[in-house]
Every structure is written in structure tokens, then in C-alpha cells.
């Protein structure tokens, strides 16, 4: 029996070591102790993040690939756990925040935790001030991160703090230029969103040329977007009053937030593929690696 225990324990160590080894290799630190500490921190942070995901789905764990199903133990365990696929809504979403808060403390350089927590605080729990305080802390720990500036700008814009939003969008676009991963599709999409919001702010302020410049920049990223071309010509002709800009950004903002919220449901059953390390234009839920275009 003792031999069996030893064998199984060794097997479990080998299996879990495959994950840990990659964490240590990825850290790029030459000190073994620092690498182990780093790996421990990242693992703890990932566990806390997974907890937030579990809370968001009211106790139903994420689905994973299984070699077999239908054993009596699996059936019993399933009976004991929650089976309904539901999400926390409204004020109830606050329950996920402590886990994300702890996750961000365990790994302050993982911006995903901050982004997820601030999204839910601002757009579901109605705590925009707390969301912005969290993003300020995120900026302190990750000073040149464009997703943090972008998220903060959108919350500011939602609450009519246009000057603040404009400064944050300027910062976000500047940070985007120096971001390491700005070649990805998600990064391009994020840049186009920031440019669009800034163009609308410029338009609202009557700065037509700046607005056109931003829209042309979007066209360079996505030449197939005919509606942007149309908008540029409308601005040049002066056929659209600039007063409509604030109404336009409110509509776009509402649609963006709704898309992100809706995205929570659709990705749940097929997420399980792992966690994105940084902001990937995702919906803002732990475990979600999908982009939201």
C-alpha cells in the first residue's frame, strides 16, 4: 500500500511539475529561489483568479477536457455541486471582487485582474469610483499599460468626465505605440477603439481636423471600413452637427459594454483553454480568452 501511495504521489508530482516548470522557465530569472517565489506567486494568483471565475458562475466550475465521464464518483460529485449555468448579476457581482483584489496583490503585474474587477465594479455593481481607484493602483504597478488607460478612459467617458477621458486616451495611444504586443489583432482593435472615442471627443469639441486625423488612422488599420470613410466625408462637408458626437460615443460605449457583458454567457462552455496573461480585448471575465469584436 505504501509503495502504491509513493508511486501515485510521484506520478502526481510529475504531472503537476509540467505546469510549474513552464512557469519557472518563463520567469527569466537566474536565481532559482526567485524563480520559485515567482512561480508560487503566479500559481496563487491564478488560483485566486479561478476562484473569481467560480464566484461569477455561482459555484459552477469551468469545464475542462476529461478522459472519461460517468463514473459513480463523478456523478455524485456533480450532484453535490451547483449544476445550473447562471451568472451573478447586479450587486451580487461584488462577491467576485475580493478574489480579484487578492489575485492582484499576489501578482500586481497581471493587468487582467485589475481590468476584470474594474469592469464589473463600474458597469454592473455601479461602483465607478472604486473601479477608477483600482485602475489608479493598476497604473502605479504597471505604468505604461495601454489597456489600463483605455479602461479608465471608458469609465470616465461613461460618467461625462470628457477631459479626463481625453487625457487617458492620449496616454493610452502613446502607451500602445511602445507596447510589446501591439502586432496582435486584439491590440489593433483596441487602438481603433481608442482612436474612435478620441475622434468623437475632438468632434464634440469642434476640432474637426484632429477628429479626421484619428479616423484616417483607423482607416489605415482597417481599410475595409467604409463607414469610417463616410464619416470623414461627412465631417469635411459639415453635414453632421458636432453636438451629435456625445450621443454617438454614448451609443458606442453602451454597445461595447453590452457586448462584453453578453460575451460572458457565450464563452463559458468552451473557455477552458487556459488564461490569457494580459489584456486580449477579452470580455473581462476570468478565464475568458476570446476577443470581443
Amino acid at each position: 500500500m505504501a509503495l502504491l501511495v509513493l508511486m501515485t504521489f510521484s506520478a502526481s508530482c510529475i504531472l503537476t511539475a509540467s505546469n510549474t516548470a513552464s512557469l519557472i522557465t518563463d520567469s527569466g530569472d537566474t536565481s532559482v529561489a526567485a524563480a520559485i517565489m515567482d512561480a508560487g506567486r503566479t500559481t496563487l494568483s491564478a488560483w485566486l483568479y479561478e476562484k473569481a471565475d467560480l464566484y461569477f458562475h455561482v459555484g459552477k466550475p469551468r469545464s475542462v477536457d476529461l478522459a472519461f465521464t460517468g463514473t459513480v464518483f463523478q456523478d455524485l460529485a456533480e450532484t453535490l455541486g451547483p449544476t445550473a449555468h447562471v451568472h451573478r448579476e447586479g450587486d451580487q457581482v461584488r462577491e467576485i471582487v475580493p478574489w480579484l483584489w487578492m489575485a492582484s496583490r499576489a501578482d500586481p503585474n497581471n493587468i487582467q485582474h485589475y481590468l476584470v474587477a474594474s469592469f464589473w465594479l463600474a458597469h454592473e455593481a455601479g461602483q465607478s469610483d472604486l473601479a477608477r481607484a483600482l485602475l489608479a493602483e493598476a497604473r502605479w504597478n504597471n505604468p505604461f499599460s495601454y489597456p489600463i488607460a483605455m479602461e479608465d478612459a471608458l469609465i470616465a467617458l461613461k460618467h461625462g468626465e470628457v477631459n479626463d477621458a481625453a487625457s487617458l486616451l492620449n496616454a493610452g495611444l502613446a502607451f500602445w505605440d511602445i507596447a510589446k504586443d501591439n502586432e496582435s489583432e486584439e491590440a489593433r482593435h483596441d487602438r481603433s477603439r481608442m482612436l474612435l472615442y478620441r475622434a468623437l471627443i475632438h468632434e464634440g469639441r469642434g476640432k474637426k481636423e484632429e477628429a479626421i486625423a484619428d479616423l484616417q488612422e483607423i482607416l489605415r488599420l482597417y481599410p475595409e471600413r467604409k463607414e469610417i470613410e463616410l464619416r470623414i466625408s461627412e465631417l469635411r462637408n459639415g453635414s453632421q452637427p458636432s453636438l451629435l458626437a456625445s450621443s454617438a460615443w454614448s451609443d458606442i460605449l453602451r454597445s461595447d459594454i453590452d457586448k462584453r457583458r453578453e460575451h460572458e454567457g457565450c464563452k463559458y462552455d468552451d473557455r477552458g483553454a487556459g488564461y490569457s496573461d494580459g489584456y486580449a480585448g477579452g470580455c473581462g471575465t476570468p478565464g475568458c480568452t476570446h476577443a470581443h469584436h
Partner: protein
Amino acid sequence: MNAIITLAGIVWMNMLRRKDIYVLLILLGVVLVTLVSLDVFGLGGTSAYVKDVGLLFTWFFGWVISVIASTREIPGEEEKRTVFTILSKPVTRCQYVAGKWVGVWLVSSVAVTVFYGLVVGVALLKGADLNPWTLMQALYMHIVLLGVICAIGLAFSARMNHDAEATVTFVLTTVSFLVVPRVPEFMAREEGFKAGLLMFAYNLFPHFEVFDLRRRVVHGYGPVGAQPVLMISAYGALLILFFVFAAWLAYRNKMFARDRMG
């Protein structure tokens, strides 16, 4: 039966004399106070994490108490040679093993019940919603599991020395807690010998995950139906019988040589 109760009483007195349970209770209190005093961006109205972490520590401490208590009883008495006094009385070895198991199980169960009380008290103070029936079911299942862990500890302690059996019991129960429920997941990434080994372990080791109702308690679900509870109770009873029987088999013909003890 009287002999079993008397032996269980001795275990009970021994545990009360030691300070393990008090230390763990204080530690749990410290953890809960720290959790309650956490200022998560001044966000009030969140309490589920207090229940969750409190129950996590309750499980952890319950596991530690049951393994330590069950693995030190028999070797401890052999070391102090009090086993000679006890076995010279009209007590069979079967009664001796059963008495030890009842004693350590009772001690662990009472300790865990107190831990639950503390967690529930703090969670209620924090404004948590708790379904009393689910909570009682969770505690009941936990107590059944403690019976299994105590039986495993006792089975190993019948033949091995204290350090070895405590280590083996900790390893076996850790594997049953953390690895066995995830074997189907691990196997999806493995094949050949490793997959076979995992399947073998899945069928061999006890499945502790079926005793865990924490998610229902934390997320505010109602109690489970009677059928799964009965099935799990029967599974727990079978495991307890198996390991207590194994302990008796290992202990019934054990020879004691005074010069090789202590």
C-alpha cells in the same frame, strides 16, 4: 462496548490535555479576524469569501487534527508502554483498535464542529446568508470523512512507527483530496503507462471529493437530496469498516518485545 467507550474516553482526555486543538482554534480565529478586517477598496456587502476561506481552513485544520490524533495514539502507547497495562485488562485487540478509532473520531468531530461554529459566527457577523440545512449536511459529510481519515491513520499506525505512518497517511489523504478528483483531467493529457497508472490510482484511492459540500454552503444552495447523502454515507461507512478492519488485522497478532520498545 464498555471497553470501547472507556478507551475512547482515554483518547478524549489525552487530546484535551494536549494543546493542538486550542492552537488551531486560535489560528482559525486569527485568520477569520484578518479576513473580516480586510479593506477591499472599502467595498462593503461581500461575505462569501469569509465563508469560503473559513471553511477552507476548517477543512485543513480538521485534516491535520484527525491525521495527527489517529497516527500517534497506538505508537504513543507503545512508546510509553501503557499498552501493556491496557492489554493486560480484559480488552481484546479488536476492542482496543475500535476504542482508539471512536476516540480520535469523536475528538476530531467535536473540534471541527467548534471550527464550523466559529466560521458561521464570523460569517453571520459579516452579514452572510447561510442555509442551516445545507450547513448541517456539510458538517455531517465532513464528520463522516473525518471517520475515514482516522481509520486510515489507525490502519497505518498498527504496524509502522509514528513518523512513517504519519507521513504515509498525510500523503495518501493529500492524494485523495487533491489528485484523485483530477485524474480524469490529467488523463486527458496522458497516454500509455502514465494513463494506466492514473486509472489504477483513480480506482484504488478513496474519493474524498464526494464528501465536500463547501460550494453549496458558500454559494447559498439548498441541501442535497436524501439519496446522494445515503450513498455517500454508505461509501464512508464501507471505507471506515475496511480501514478499521485492516488496522485490526495488522494489530491482532502484533508481538511486543519490551527490550525493543521505547
